[in-house]
C-alpha cells in the first residue's frame, strides 16, 4: 500500500550499562513507519517504548541492528543528508516543565532552531514564522505569548510551545513521548486533536508513546498500535483490531485490567487471572517468551524454550509473537496440575 517506509528498524537491539550489568532494554525490534501514519507504542514502564521512540527520533544509537531513514542507514548519512534527516525527525518530551529552558522567552525558544537551521532570511521573516507557529498551536494572540517565560504558562500551554518548537524545522515525523500524561485530563483531548490536525495539514507521521491504551485507541483509531513487553513488540496491527480483538495474552490481560470511566462497564469487567503478578527483571529474563511466567495460556516445552517471532496468526489481522497463536492453535488455560517435576 505504501511505497517506502519513512523509518525502518531492522533487528534493533539496545543495551544499557548498569554498573557491572548490561541491561538488554530492546531486543530484536522490527518496525516500519510510513509517511503520514499514526503509530502508538504502548506498554508498561520498563518495556522499552521510550527507548524505541528515541531511536526512531535519531537521538539514541542502536547497540546492534539498523535504523533506516528513507531507505538509507541513518548512521551512514553524512553532511547535508544527515542534517536533513535530523530535521525530519523531532520529538516532544513528556515533561514540558523540564524540556523548555526557563531562562529563555518563548520567542527565544522558537528563534533558536530557526536561526540554527537558517530557516528564515531576515528578522522580519523570523518574526513572521514565530507568529505563524504560535498560531498553528492555538497560542493566540501570539503577541501575548512571545515575551513570556515558560513558568508564566500553564502546563498545556507549555506543551503547545514544545510542539511549536518541533514544527520549526518542518519535520516529517514527530515522536510524542507521553506528551499529554502531565497535562490535566480536561485539556488533554484538545492537545491531541491539535496534533492530529497538524499531522493532516502538514503531512507528518506521529509516533505516539503512551502507557494509556484508551488514549492510544482514541488517538490512533485510524492508525496502528504496537504493544511492547519487556523490550519486545508482542503484537502490532490496526488499532481497532488490537483493541477489540486482541490476540496476545499480554494484550488481553492489559485490556481486561484497564478500569473504564463507566461504572456499569467497570464493574462487569472480568480481570484475566495471571500466573504471577511479578514482572521479571530485564537482567534476569526468563527463557523463551518473556511473558510465559505470567501467562495463563502457557504451554510447557514450547513457550519456555524459544522466543516467538512477530508473525501472522491465523484468524487475526495483526501480527503477534505467541507460539500457540502463530501455529494456529487455540489458547488453552495452562493446567497447573500438569506441572510435574
Amino acid at each position, binding site marked *: 500500500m505504501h511505497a517506502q517506509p519513512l523509518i525502518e528498524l531492522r533487528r534493533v537491539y539496545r543495551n544499557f550499562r548498569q554498573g557491572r550489568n548490561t541491561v538488554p532494554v530492546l531486543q530484536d525490534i522490527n518496525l516500519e513507519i510510513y509517511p503520514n501514519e499514526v503509530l502508538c507504542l504502548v506498554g*508498561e514502564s520498563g518495556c522499552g517504548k521510550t527507548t524505541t521512540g528515541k531511536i526512531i527520533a535519531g537521538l539514541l544509537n542502536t547497540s546492534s541492528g539498523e535504523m533506516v531513514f528513507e531507505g538509507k542507514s541513518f548512521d551512514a548519512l553524512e553532511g547535508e543528508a544527515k542534517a536533513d534527516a535530523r530535521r525530519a525527525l523531532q520529538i516532544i518530551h513528556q515533561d514540558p516543565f523540564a524540556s523548555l529552558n526557563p531562562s529563555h522567552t518563548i520567542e527565544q525558544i522558537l528563534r533558536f532552531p530557526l536561526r540554527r537551521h537558517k530557516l528564515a532570511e531576515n528578522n522580519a521573516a523570523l518574526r513572521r514564522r514565530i507568529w505563524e507557529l504560535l498560531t498553528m498551536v492555538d497560542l493566540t494572540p501570539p503577541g501575548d505569548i512571545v515575551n513570556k517565560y515558560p513558568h508564566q504558562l500553564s502546563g498545556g*500551554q507549555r506543551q503547545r510551545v514544545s510542539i511549536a518548537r518541533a514544527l520549526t524545522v518542518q519535520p516529517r515525523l514527530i515522536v510524542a513521548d507521553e506528551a499529554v500524561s502531565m497535562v*490535566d*485530563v480536561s485539556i488533554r483531548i*484538545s492537545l491531541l*486533536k491539535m496534533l492530529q490536525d497538524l499531522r493532516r495539514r502538514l503531512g507528518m507521521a506521529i509516533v505516539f508513546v503512551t502507557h494509556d491504551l484508551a488514549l492510544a485507541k482514541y488517538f490512533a483509531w485510524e492508525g496502528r498500535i504496537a504493544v511492547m513487553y519487556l523490550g519486545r513488540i508482542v503484537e502490532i496491527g490496526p488499532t481497532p483490531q488490537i483493541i477489540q480483538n486482541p490476540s496476545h495474552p499480554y494484550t488481553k490481560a492489559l485490556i481486561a485490567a*484497564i478500569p473504564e470511566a*463507566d*461504572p456499569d462497564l467497570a464493574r462487569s469487567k472480568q480481570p484475566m487471572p495471571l500466573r504471577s*503478578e511479578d514482572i521479571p527483571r530485564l537482567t534476569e529474563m526468563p527463557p523463551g517468551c518473556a511473558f510465559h511466567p505470567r501467562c495463563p495460556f502457557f504451554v510447557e516445552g514450547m513457550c519456555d524454550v524459544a522466543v516467538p517471532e512477530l508473525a501472522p496468526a491465523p484468524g487475526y489481522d495483526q501480527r503477534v509473537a505467541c507460539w500457540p497463536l502463530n501455529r494456529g492453535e487455540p489458547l488453552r488455560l495452562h493446567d497447573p496440575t500438569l506441572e510435574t517435576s
Partner: protein
Amino acid sequence: MNDVVLSVRDLSISYLVRRGRLKAVQNVSFDLHRGETLALIGESACGKSTLNLGLMRLLPKTARIDGGQLIYTRRDNTPIDILKLKPRDLRRFRWQECAMVFQAALNSLNPVIRVQDMVYDTARAHGETNRDRVKKRIMELFRLVRLDPDRVFNAYPHELSGGMRQRVLIALSVLLEPQILLLDEPTTALDILTQRAILEILKDLRRQLGLSIIFISHDLSIAAEIADTVATMYAGHIVEKGPVGDVFYRSRHAYTRGLLDAVPKLEGDAQELASIPGSPPDLIDPPTGCKFHPRCGFATDRCHDDLPALIPVGAEHHLAACWESDQVYAVTQEKREHARATAD
C-alpha cells in the same frame, strides 16, 4: 441510627503565599458513612489533596484552617472534634482511627530499615509492645494484600517493586485497625496490571475489615470502578456529589459533564471527545459567582454573579452546585439516548 464516621461541615483551608491567600478548600461539607467508599475526583490544584491532609490535620505550616468543623465518631459512638484535639490525642487519632496511604510509596518507606522494623516502630509508637501479636497481625495483612509474608517482612524497601511497596503501605496503614482509610492517588505511578491488583486488594480489604475509604484521584475510571459515592471538586469547592451511577450517568454539573466527555473509553468504536476550554482559575483571585463559569458552555449572567449552593437535585443523595443543572441533565440524557441509538 448513626452510621456517619466522619462529618465535615463548611471546611475552608487556605495557604499563605506571596501574593496573598490561596483559597484551596472552600466551604466543603460531606458525611462519610460506615463502610462507604467516597471518591474525590478533580484535576491538579482543585484542592483535593489539601482537603485530605486537612482531615488528618497534616497540613504544612503555611496552611490555615479558616473555619468549619470536623466530627469523627469512634467505634463506641463517642464523637470527637478533630479540630480541637490536643497533640497527644491527635497522634492517637492518626493511624489508630484514621490512616493514610500516600501516592509515592517509595518516599513513604524508610529506605534504611527493614519492613519489620517499620511495623514494630509503628505499633510501639501507638502503645502496642507485644511483638508476637504485631507480627501475627501483619503477616495476616500481608497475606490479605497478596504478598509473600516471610519475604516482605525481612526485606528492605529497595528490594521490593513499586506495586509491592504500595501493598506494604496499605497493609501497614490498617495495622492498627483504623475505621477510615485515606488514599491519595494510590495507583497513579503504578503499571496497569499492578494497578488492577491494588484495586482488587482494596475491594477485599473494604469487605473484610469494614473500612470507610476516602479515595482521591484525578482518574475517573478508578472512581467508576470502586466508589459508592463520587464527589467532584473544582477550584476548592465540591460541585457535585452523589451515588456513582447518578454522577456518571445523570450528571447535574457542567464540570462533571465536561470531565466525562474528555475521557476516552476502551469499549466501543471511535468516540467523540472534547476538552473543557480554558484552564483552571487562579485560586488567589478566583472568578466571581460559580468558579467554573468562565469555562462553562451553559453559563448565564446568574452564574457570573452568584455562587450556586450544593443542593439536592434529581435522585436522593444527589447534590450539585450548578444554576443550570437541569440543562446539564438534559444534555446528558440526550447523549445517552444518542449513544444507545447508535449502538443498536
